[in-house]
């Protein structure tokens, strides 16, 4: 018999929210959103598309082995440092790690000839050397996200004698034949990657972001409706804006590197079959013997669960673990889901292997 008061109460709440939506909606339209990537850091290497950051330690005693993050080549690295209180880097600094991040700038026109070889045999080793020099330590823990995970994986496979002490990959595709829609769109009978690369040089960011959006064609529009509905909720809006801006800042890809991704990985699935050759050397993930962690997301629409799940079986390490976590491609590493799930799990895995 409490129906009428309940209805009245709900109506009052909705009227109040509608009022707040109008006031805060105006602020939303005229403000530029929360700051991102603000944890204090030094840029220690800057070479064309490559930037290496060293985050300033926040505790007086850190673990011996520094962490080097390798960001995905399609997006900016501030997803690891989204906002104070929502920053993966800040979390790790406070837990006593010495943190470095490889971030990518949009490749310049003259960098369209960059290949996997440049990323794996030049950029990552240069960053590892810089980390070694600055930290005074020989070993590093390598952590890669998405395509950054692929680069970290290939680097570790080709440098099995060190100096990688631990390898952690997040949502790292391994079986490229299980990519679903991407496999159908990049059908070798129809997808002329040579024309695209030869014409554009670097693959335009618009093409990449459009292909990501086509995986969930109406989700962006629904997201706009949801942000309006939650306009009264400051935390929701702050988080939405941070993710939305990050998602919109897709990077172009170096042309030759993209050609290799399509031909070697999408068309021929060579990382999975063990036929991939980088710099004349065959990439065998079975050669990786260091402690290995792979975190994958149950509902990943970018690097599907099916494309990522077999990696753990093929890596040669005896100390290896796969974490299958709830969430999607981005919510695995950033946002409230990541704060509760991945971050503490990575800390628990790395701590005993970093002293």
């Amino acid at each position, binding site marked *: 018999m*409490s*129906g009428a008061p*309940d*209805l009245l109460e*709900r109506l009052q709440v*909705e009227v109040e929210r509608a009022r707040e939506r109008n006031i805060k909606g105006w602020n939303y339209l005229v403000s530029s959103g929360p700051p991102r990537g603000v944890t204090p850091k*030094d840029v220690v290497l800057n070479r*064309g598309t490559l930037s290496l950051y*060293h985050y*300033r*330690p926040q*505790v*007086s*005693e*850190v*673990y*011996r082995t520094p962490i080097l993050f390798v960001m995905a080549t399609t997006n900016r690295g501030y997803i690891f440092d989204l906002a104070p209180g929502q920053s993966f880097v800040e979390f790790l600094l406070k837990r*006593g790690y*010495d943190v470095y991040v490889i971030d990518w700038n949009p490749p*310049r*026109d*003259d960098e369209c000839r960059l290949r996997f070889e440049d990323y794996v045999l030049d950029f990552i080793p240069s960053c590892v050397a810089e980390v070694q020099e*600055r*930290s*005074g*330590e020989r070993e590093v823990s390598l952590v890669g996200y998405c395509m950054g995970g692929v680069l970290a994986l290939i680097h570790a496979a080709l440098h099995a004698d060190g100096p990688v002490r631990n390898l952690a990959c997040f949502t790292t595709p391994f079986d490229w034949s299980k990519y*679903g*829609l991407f496999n*159908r*769109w990049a*059908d070798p*009978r*129809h*997808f*002329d990657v040579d*024309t*695209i690369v030869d*014409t*554009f040089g670097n693959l335009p960011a618009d*093409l990449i972001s459009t292909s990501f959006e*086509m*995986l*969930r*064609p*109406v*989700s962006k529009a*629904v997201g706009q*409706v*949801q942000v309006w*509905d939650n306009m009264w909720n400051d935390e929701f809006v702050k988080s939405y804006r941070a993710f939305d801006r990050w998602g919109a800042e897709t990077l172009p890809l170096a042309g030759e590197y993209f050609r290799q991704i399509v031909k070697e990985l999408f068309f021929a699935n060579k990382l999975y079959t063990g036929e991939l050759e980088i710099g004349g050397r065959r990439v065998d993930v079975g050669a990786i013997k260091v402690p290995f962690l792979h975190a994958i997301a149950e509902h990943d629409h970018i690097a599907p669960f099916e494309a990522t799940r077999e990696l753990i079986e093929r890596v040669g390490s005896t100390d290896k673990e796969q974490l299958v976590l709830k969430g999607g491609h981005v919510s695995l590493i950033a946002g409230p889901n990541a704060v509760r799930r991945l971050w503490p799990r990575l800390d628990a895995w790395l*701590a*005993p292997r*970093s*002293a």
Partner: protein
Amino acid sequence: MAGTADFMQLWREALQKWERQTNEALNAASGDEAFSRAMNQSMAAMARLQALQGEAIERALTRHNLPSRADFRELGSRLDSIEAQLSELNRLFGEIVSVARGAAPPAAPPVPRPARTRKPPQDAAS
């Protein structure tokens, strides 16, 4: 009663359901070979059009004795190389001046250097 009265919640659930079903339907439509062929044909046509436009603009610029995008690109990469060399020379010059004055080379900006002796929590407790 509260459940049935919460029309906004019903609307939110309906929106989510619509999103899921529409995404699935559009994914199914875009997953067939005809879509892939049409999409790739239009992308290739766009690329060819862009290439033709680029060539036409290049010819027009040459006719008017104006620098092209490729010229600027080459100039940019040469400036980058000169900038890198200047930066290296600047660093070396600073070191030479310091040595000549009998002082130590200028130090890098101070970065906190904590002890690298941290132990994982269970080790620290034991």
